[in-house]
């Protein structure tokens, strides 16, 4: 008998925990509120089933506890009831699947005005590349990566010359402008995840994967790697700053393009050679 009370307490406790929990999802900062809505719908339907089944079970525990000589129902089957339950469950499942798939369809179809942004993952940090003035990212190959070409951009591809290289782990985005994240990895699986944006996808070496979102709230957001990638996985953090137009342009101006990068390197090279010559003369 008192077992029933403890089970009841567990169910009531679960409901209370859910209602009063201080641990709830982060404030959403992107357009993917539909994901949150689908979760809420799932809570109503799924949570409703959980509570209903458990309460029914608890009721049975109270009402049908063992009594010598109790009249027990002997009914091997009740096909009608089973069919009704199957139909109701199927409807419930469909009610979850339909909106879910509609939103999934939105997730995989990038809006045409989204800006491509390459996120390059490696053990254990992040780098970024923006398409520059021509709006196109230059093609790249991992075998081209070296100190002179940290992103492995193909030197014959003109589109790559004006690509903006961001070697720090801080990416800035403009608010209310959709972006398509193109994920690349140079070594193992990683995943570029900002909880406030909700969206994520693995970065797979040998492939380019993608997802899109539209940030709509200014602020600083932490990036968490969300696919186990070795011993540094938990430390593979970065920062995304969502700026208004003005601040974004200010930040963009300070970034260097691939051509700038090469030029600076060449400049350093020329300086080095000159220095070496001077040193040689002095000896």
């Amino acid at each position, binding site marked *: 008998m008192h077992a029933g009370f*403890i*089970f009841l307490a*567990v*169910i009531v406790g*679960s409901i209370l*925990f859910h209602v009063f929990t201080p*641990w*709830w*999802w*982060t404030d959403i900062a992107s357009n993917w509120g539909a*994901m949150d809505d689908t*979760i809420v719908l*799932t809570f109503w339907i799924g949570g409703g*089933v959980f509570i209903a089944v*458990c309460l029914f*079970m608890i009721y*049975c*525990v109270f009402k*049908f*506890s*063992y009594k*010598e000589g*109790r*009249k*027990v*129902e*002997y009914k*091997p*089957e*009740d096909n009608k009831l*089973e069919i009704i339950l199957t139909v109701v*469950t*199927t409807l419930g499942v469909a009610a979850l699947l339909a909106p*879910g798939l509609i939103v*999934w369809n939105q*997730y995989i179809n990038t809006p045409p005005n989204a800006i491509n942004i390459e996120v390059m993952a490696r053990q254990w940090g992040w780098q970024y590349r923006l398409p520059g003035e021509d709006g196109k990212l230059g093609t790249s190959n991992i075998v081209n*990566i070296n100190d002179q070409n940290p992103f492995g951009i193909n030197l014959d591809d003109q589109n790559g010359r004006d690509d903006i290289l961001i070697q720090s782990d801080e990416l800035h985005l403009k608010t209310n402008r959709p972006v398509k994240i193109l994920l690349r990895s*140079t*070594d*193992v*699986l990683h*995943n570029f995840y900002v*909880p406030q944006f*909700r*969206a*994520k*996808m*693995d970065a*797979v*070496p*040998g*492939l380019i994967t993608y997802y899109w979102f539209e940030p709509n709230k200014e602020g600083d957001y932490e990036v*968490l*790697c*969300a696919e186990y990638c*070795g*011993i*540094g996985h*938990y430390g593979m*953090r970065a920062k995304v700053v969502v700026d208004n137009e003005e601040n974004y342009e200010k930040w963009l101006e300070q970034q260097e393009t691939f051509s700038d990068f090469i030029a600076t390197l060449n400049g350093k090279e020329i300086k080095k050679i000159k220095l070496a010559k001077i040193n040689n003369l002095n000896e």
Partner: protein
Amino acid sequence: MSDDFYKNKTSIEAQPSRTISDSSGSVSDIDYVKPAEVSDQDLYHGHSFITKWIFCQDAKVIGIQYTLTAVFTGIIGLILSWLMRLQLGFPELVPFITAEHYYQFVTMHGMIMVVYFLTALFLGGFGNYLIPLMTGARDMVFPYVNMVSYWMFFVAVLVLMASFFVPGGPTGSGWTLYPPQAILEGTPGSGAGIILMLVSLALFVVGFTMGGLNYVITILQARTRGMTLMRMPLTVWGIFTATVLALLAFPALFVSVIMMSLDRILGTSFFMPTILKAGEILEYGGGSPVLFQHLFWFFGHPEVYIVALPAFGIVSDLISVHSRKNIFGYRMMVWAIVAIGALSFFVWAHHMYVSGMNPWFGFFFATTTLIIAVPTALKVYNWVLTLWRGNIRMTTVMLFCLGFIVTFVNGGITGIFLGNVIVDIPLSDTYFVVAHFHMVMGIAPLMVIFGAIYHWFPLVTGRLLDEKLGKWHFWFSFLGAYSIYFPMHYLGFIGVPRRYFEMYDSPYITSAVGLNQSITIAALIVGLSQFIFIFNIVKSLRMGKPAGKNPWKANSLEWQTPNVPPAHGNWGDKLPVVYRWPYDFNVPGAKEDYIPQTTPPSEVLEAKVEKT
């Protein structure tokens, strides 16, 4: 409420069939059962200590061997979980747990619990002991191969444990062993550790194929007279379907293990794309990491049903016996088990929604995953409808069944969250997933395992486990485990990723410090409370109340053996004859509230039996 549960009741002996034929040649006989199609099994009898207890071909001994080995590995897995929780809850307290060690604990804990503990215990432990007894066979069809299967499992466990002691330690790649990281430096144990893991898995698959063939063919071809497929207890149906899944799903694991071994040892590139590491392009190239994921999850998803289906079958029988009522909707329960088993081969990529596979697959797999929820829900309804208008005995066994229902429905519902592809996007690789699979695969089947042990201990040992200690064990385990995993879902909602050694100073994650600490404390309490169970077993082995024959007054065949515990050959001279299904509880008109499967109709003429 008098409790006459422990009084010895006279057993109802099985009667041979009687044939009455009249002069016209037509036969009318209510006790008629088809004659034997095959001759009685010719068993090997061990005579030395070694052939009776070590290299023994008796499925009951083999079942106990599997159980003991699986439980041993489970205890190791449990200890590893304590170490992991200590690091997550109180990182300053345990500086000896480095990131490297932590990931090795995570990996070994996962692989041990899923494969070496749960699968081995359900199929090797319960399967071996119960299948011949419940189907009326004397033993498995090929006892020699059955014996070899256990020793292969034993060697696989040894190889796995050996990986703790090799240079570099065991693999720390996560139980999912994803390439390229699993075999590259930067992941712990990428030297010898991963190789031993792969070898151990290959041995495990070979051994379980040998065992699985035995379970399947014994159920299909070696049942006793009168035991039709639809008179088998749901325990047998659950283990049977799970074994079929194992035979068809383990090949994918085996193939992925072979290919990863070749990638690691010979430098092939099945799964390895071009990789830049520490400034150098490695020798690999052209391979596909996603291919491994497809192969692994083609195995991995049926694997969770290999764990779940025996639990479904067993819990149906436990609920039925302890509420003195037939399982509601037996036929639908059978079909649901088979449907779930079949569908489980079509849902694997719901583990890969964010893997970078073709996004259009998301539509297909979300649909199939949510479809599989329907037969599963039906089973849940039927379990609670079995309680409805029953006569429920609040034994320890029944408590564990109720605990199973609560935790399984909870875990199953969170599975619906994750199966709906768009909902999986924010939640994947967070603690929501960890909470989900622990609830549905750890706690719920574990409730069934405990309940099953309390239920069948009297058959295996002839003694009952202590009920009071059992109830303490239940409440600690159920309430404790629920307090670990229910709140953990909310860590996932905040966005805390899984497989994080440390949370650092992330502003919102630090808000969860208190939650992590309380989860750790609950985990340690639940872990320690298992000593109540171990103490109960050791104590009851010597001093437990003698159970006598069929103390729970159950109907299924395993309780109708002439000896308790059952002797070699199970049935003595005469194989049992079955006349009815195992759920004739409280049949109107019958004298007792149960009618064993071996009771012929002529002995219960007054009972208004509806289903046979």
